[in-house]
């Protein structure tokens, strides 16, 4: 079975520090995983802040070059994709979704520009009409229509709509893989659901694989097929999402799971009290 995406012992080291005190920081330490070509899945990366999640996403997208190890997309090392034509080819198959829907669209340009250029560049839609039909088709997938958003600016739309449009845009080239880095962290509970539901729809109905990066274990549990848990650059646990989250093995994964507050006042405040007591004890 061929692989859609393969990460093979990928590490990334950054130079940090000021004028005189320099150091290196291993943001990602030998991460390996792969996603299958045949069966679309939602692959979730969770982990603490600064554990290297975004860095991995950037490396997959070709925005950062791994220090060691290789990342292959459909068998080709992504670092070798440099020429504009190749990049376009690559981007046709791999598309990102960004964290903040309000930031992802330039507030000063109409939203549809993003859709139309995507259609033009990746699907060879030359005329405005072709572009419009492509865009509309993609928008239908996310429950919107072009008529609703044509000529509008990002502030004229809600966060949920924007995030859906972002997804729709990513769908226009009919990619195999979508890399979504914290796509829901900035939005309210209801919007959050609408987006993760959409992901499920993409996977099930369109066969798009999704790398879903998040802090929110609840949604991770809710939609993912597989999950890896990261801690300080290392993958500490990996496997079927529900299995891992139901039954974490690694110390950190357990801590993470326990830190998730339940949506119920009594249990939540109890959990918090417990945590505080623990911390107090630690400090003492």
């Amino acid at each position, binding site marked *: 079975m061929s692989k859609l995406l393969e990460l093979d012992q990928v590490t990334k080291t950054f130079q940090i520090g000021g004028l005189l005190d320099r150091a290196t920081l291993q943001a990602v330490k030998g991460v390996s995983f792969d996603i299958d070509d045949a069966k679309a899945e939602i692959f979730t990366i969770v982990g603490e802040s600064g554990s290297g999640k975004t860095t991995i996403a950037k490396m997959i997208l070709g925005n950062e070059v791994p220090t060691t190890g290789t990342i292959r997309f459909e068998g080709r090392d992504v670092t070798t994709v440099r020429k504009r034509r190749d990049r376009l080819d690559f*981007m046709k198959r791999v598309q*990102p979704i960004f964290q*903040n829907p309000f930031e992802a669209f*330039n507030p000063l340009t109409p939203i549809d520009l993003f859709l139309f250029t995507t259609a033009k560049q990746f699907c060879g839609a030359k005329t405005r009409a072709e572009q419009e039909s492509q865009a509309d088709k993609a928008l239908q997938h996310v429950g919107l229509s072009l008529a609703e958003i044509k000529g509008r600016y990002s502030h004229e739309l809600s966060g949920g709509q924007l995030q859906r449009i972002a997804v729709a845009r*990513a769908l226009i080239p009919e990619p195999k893989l979508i890399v979504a880095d914290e796509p829901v962290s900035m939005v309210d509970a209801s919007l959050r659901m609408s987006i993760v539901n959409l992901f499920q729809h993409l996977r099930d109905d369109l066969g798009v694989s999704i790398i879903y990066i998040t802090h929110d274990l609840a949604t991770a549990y809710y939609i993912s097929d597989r999950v890896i848990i990261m801690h300080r650059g290392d993958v500490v646990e990996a496997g079927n999402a529900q299995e891992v989250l139901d039954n974490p093995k690694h110390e950190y994964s357990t801590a993470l799971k326990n830190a998730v507050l339940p949506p119920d006042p009594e249990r939540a405040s109890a959990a918090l009290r417990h945590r505080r007591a623990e911390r107090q004890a630690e400090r003492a």
Partner: protein
Amino acid sequence: MFKVLRDLLRYNREFLIGFILTASLVIYASLHFFSPYDNTAIYLLPPDMPPSPDYWLGTTSRGQDIFWQISAALWNTMTFGITVTVISRMLALTMGMISGYIGGRGDRVLMTINDTLIALPNLPILLLVYFVMREQMNWAILAVVTACLSWNYDARIIRSVALSLRQREFTRHAVYAGMSMPQVLVRQHMPYVMPIVFFTAMNNLIFAIGIEVTLAVLGFIDLNRPTIGGMINWANQHQAIVAGVWWWIAFPIIAIVLLFLGLFLLAISINEYIDPRSRLARMGG
């Protein structure tokens, strides 16, 4: 476009004042096409006449009507200044945005060129170029050279904004939407740097006029073309200030101060109009 102008005029007092000032100066300057006297002709009128109903702004020691002289001078100086400004803004904009956007090695190369030009002392280079070109040197070439010497600092400012824009999510998004570099720069980044462009344009205009005057004072100027610098040069040759012919210097200066203020008001109010923040607020972002 027309609507924008109307809105600005109607709702922004600064724009209105700036517009009136600038427009009247432009009209005044274009009046020189209908001047009753030949602009380069001298001793047609009694010299050294103070402002009076006959000669509104007085006459020069060369027997020229200052009102009409300024009219032509303003036109030429404005043409020069605006040419410089437009060319140098275009240079600054492209270089700054490209440099900031591509980053890395390309940025370093461009900034090295930029720094080299910054390090060159303007005036001596201009004078030298002036000598080298000699007859071929006309105001248009002078404008180009001046422009080449005056875009670099502003390019740096634009670059720093471009550098931060490069990190914005929408830039990356645009790249993944398949936009090419020019598209990203023009469609995505330009609206953010335009205020800087307008703003620096003012200083640049002043700089250009200053260069023109400086060259004139040092005597490097085409005496046949009335300009503000040229008027100062002539006034200077006639020791106008010491001789008490103050109106020969004062009125051209007032004219450029007014021109500057007018353009400045226009720039800040247009800036307010196109500034991302206020624009967002207006649109309701």
